[in-house]
């Protein structure tokens, strides 16, 4: 079976500092993969290399067999890649609904039309609303993002990613900065994402993350040092040494 995401020998240096070193990993379709590692391990850099925010020095990234290296970010998105950001990246002056519409527009050829009226495209409005309902923000659709809570914004990030019906979803610390209650809500939401979406997640909240993950990759100084099933990685002494502690 073709992996949803196949990374081979990925290298990236910032000057003399190697951010990822010969990273290789295969994520199968429908899999829930957790990427862990201490701060500075290269987790977000790895995501940025997958999305094209950063250009790899050497190596290969394939999405369902399509080579992504050298491809602009927007084309990767059109192939079915979506992500959320560790630092929220939204459109704060716009409504929640408009934010999701921008996500939908990104994959719709109508985005090139300078004559059509966006608000008159009811099908898109309904789809955006449905995505907000999915994350529990249906009633807040017309609110301005700047007036919403941090947890709601995290959910909005999810709505924007899910609205695009991605094949592979990269979640960069989706639970960061959330209260216990909000974490529970988002964890529940994570479980509702259908299996045709492959998920790769960076997360430090190990209780939630371990519950979610099927396979885990441990990065340290830009290198994959442990990879395996949940039980294998947790039991590995190197995981305890560099990440979990005693």
């Amino acid at each position: 079976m073709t992996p949803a995401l196949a990374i081979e020998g990925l290298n990236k240096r910032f000057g003399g500092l190697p951010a990822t070193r010969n990273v290789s990993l295969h994520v199968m379709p429908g899999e829930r993969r957790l990427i862990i590692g201490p701060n500075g391990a290269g987790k977000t850099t790895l995501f940025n290399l997958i999305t094209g925010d950063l250009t790899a020095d050497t190596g290969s990234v394939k999405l369902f067999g399509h080579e992504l290296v050298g491809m602009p970010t927007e084309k990767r998105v059109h192939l079915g890649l979506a992500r959320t950001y560790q630092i929220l990246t939204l459109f704060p002056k716009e409504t929640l609904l408009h934010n999701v519409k921008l996500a939908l527009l990104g994959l719709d050829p109508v985005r090139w039309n300078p004559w059509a009226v966006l608000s008159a495209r009811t099908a898109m409005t309904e789809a955006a609303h449905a995505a907000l309902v999915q994350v529990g923000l249906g009633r807040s659709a017309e609110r301005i993002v700047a007036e919403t809570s941090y947890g709601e914004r995290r959910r909005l990030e999810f709505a924007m990613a899910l609205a695009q019906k991605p094949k592979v979803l990269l979640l960069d610390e989706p639970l960061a900065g959330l209260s216990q209650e909000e974490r529970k809500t988002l964890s529940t939401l994570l479980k509702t994402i259908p299996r045709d979406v492959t998920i790769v997640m960076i997360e430090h909240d190990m209780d939630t993350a371990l519950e979610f993950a099927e396979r885990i990759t441990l990065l340290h100084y830009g290198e994959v040092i442990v990879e395996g099933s949940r039980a294998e990685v947790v039991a590995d002494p190197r995981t305890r040494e560099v990440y979990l502690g005693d």
Partner: protein
Amino acid sequence: MSRGNIIAVVIAAVLLIALPRIITHEFYINMASQCLIFAILALSLNLMLGFGGMVSLGHAAYIGVAGYTCILLTIAGWHPLLAAIAALALSTVIAGVFGMLSLRAPGLGFLMITLALGQIVWGIAYRANTLTGGDNGIRLPARPEPFGINITGAPAFYYFTLIVFAVALFGMWRFARSPFGASLMGTRDQPRRMRMLGHNVWMVQWLTFVIAGFWGSVGGLMFVYYNVFLSPHALTLQQSAEILLMSILGGASSLTGPIVGAVIITLIKNVASTYVERWNTLLGAIFIAVIIFMPLGLVPGCRALWLRWRNRNRPKSPTPAAEPAE
């Protein structure tokens, strides 16, 4: 569009149509035409500035490219309509080339490249004596006669300008509300995020540059029809800066802002300059005052004041509680 906006548009349209009957003096009717022409130029620049976050100091170049092309083709015996179409086509193509060059650099680099390109067009107009008449400029043989209608007189030309202005404004109003307009505003606010949502940021910005160049060329063509003459003085850096100032003063990112800015600056240039020798100082003082008290410009500033006054006694509405995820 809200009911209030529709009423405002109808009142503005009635006033603009009735204007030559209200102010019958030819000087003021001509000034109204100038206001509309500069409003087209400021609106076109505002597509880049207000909606796209791209600050250009080379917009007067389109007055030059469209204007000289139109005059030279008319002198060469072309039908005025064909000359106008060719001028717009060439100027829009030039905008495409300028866009490719300018978008190589963001922010300040973009500003400097547009400035340099504007200066190149000015330099060519200044130096190419045999073609452009150099510093002395070149005359358009006569104003065109659209559909056989003579627009030599001030009121007739005003109505012609008003029609072109209305078409341009409607086109840009649709643009601002279109999916493309939404993409453009998204690229202004979060280019990285927009890429990750599937938008081709460079292409959106480039197409906006071209569309702004097209409408800028329309404004340039009207400028030449109004003056029946063009010289390098119309393409200077000061001209580009004034167009930019019109957008900022009135309020970029709104459609009415550049119109208000164009009216104020045109009036100061033409009316205040007859009474005040240092009208540039007056303009500078007004600009500084507006930026201090209304940093977003006159129109958004007045709108904010109006909203604050209207909501002065209204209690804050509670935010709806988030419902659980499905």
